[in-house]
């Protein structure tokens, strides 16, 4: 009985951890949206800044990947 509760708690926790991905989605969308609005105002400068955009995406996305990792750890490793 106790094991079932632990299992249930793990699965609920894994599901809750996945809500963190929504934050990463907001972050990545924010980075790309702002890049695009800036790029459309000054298209000449856009090409030089794509690398910066990808770095920004990577940093924003890493935190979403952390929440995915927490979910995986809860389901498989603990």
């Amino acid at each position, binding site marked *: 009985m106790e094991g079932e509760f632990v*299992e249930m708690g793990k699965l609920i926790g894994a599901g809750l951890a996945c809500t963190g991905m929504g934050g990463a989605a907001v972050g990545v969308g924010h980075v790309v949206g702002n890049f695009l609005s800036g790029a459309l105002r000054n298209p000449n400068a856009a090409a030089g800044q794509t*690398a910066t955009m*990808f*770095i920004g995406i*990577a940093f924003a*996305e*890493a935190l979403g*990947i952390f929440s995915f990792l927490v979910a*995986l750890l809860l389901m498989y490793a603990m």
Partner: protein
Amino acid sequence: MATGSESSFDIRPMDQFIISPLFSEGDLNWYTFTNQSLWMLIALLGIIGLFVFGIRKGDVVPGRIQSIAEVVYVFVHKMVVDIAGQEGLKYFPYIFSLFLLILFGNVLGLLPYSFTFTSHIAVTGILALLVFVSVTVLGFIRNGVRFLSLFWISSAPLALRPVLLVIEVISYFVRPVSHSIRLAGNMMAGHAVIKVFAGFAGVMGLGAIAPIFAIVAVYGLEMLVVVIQAYVFTILTCVYLNDALHPGH
């Protein structure tokens, strides 16, 4: 997973990441030839094939394979110069091999029945730790104690600097963690999504039009993601290298 195994709805998207020995039974040792080693070997042979046999003729007007090799080379070369400056070119061979290994690992992992070795934190963790340790050592060799000015930001107000010091030190030591988990997590998640939809298609049988279209769509997205993740890993290596070469700005 413990649940769901008793019904016919039995999808195991994570089974593709299991490491198994190929030619022997029993335990895994450091010398055991596993599916992981096999796909690393295939990636290595692919890189050698692309760059040794593709370039060997050295035509002035490049053929198909030679132009692929040239495009990849110029792409990484430009990335290193843009981010880390001309001094970073000394470390270009390492960054280029890193990019090629990750790119080939990611792309080969998309083949059906293949194994994605970059989806394991053991692999990406070693790659990220090598970058982290070598960049830190390089920073101290090149700049001595001045490398620590990376953490003591002199352009900030004096009252803020201790707070920033704590934040910068933490973010510096989180680098290898996020660097490796980003790649492994992206690969794992993307390939698991494809397998989940494939499981839906398997359950639905012949009427599975929607899951098959979903697989095609996700597969197209994954083609993009695997290349971007190789690019992101390499560009972050360049950023860290730039921090080591020019601390303080």
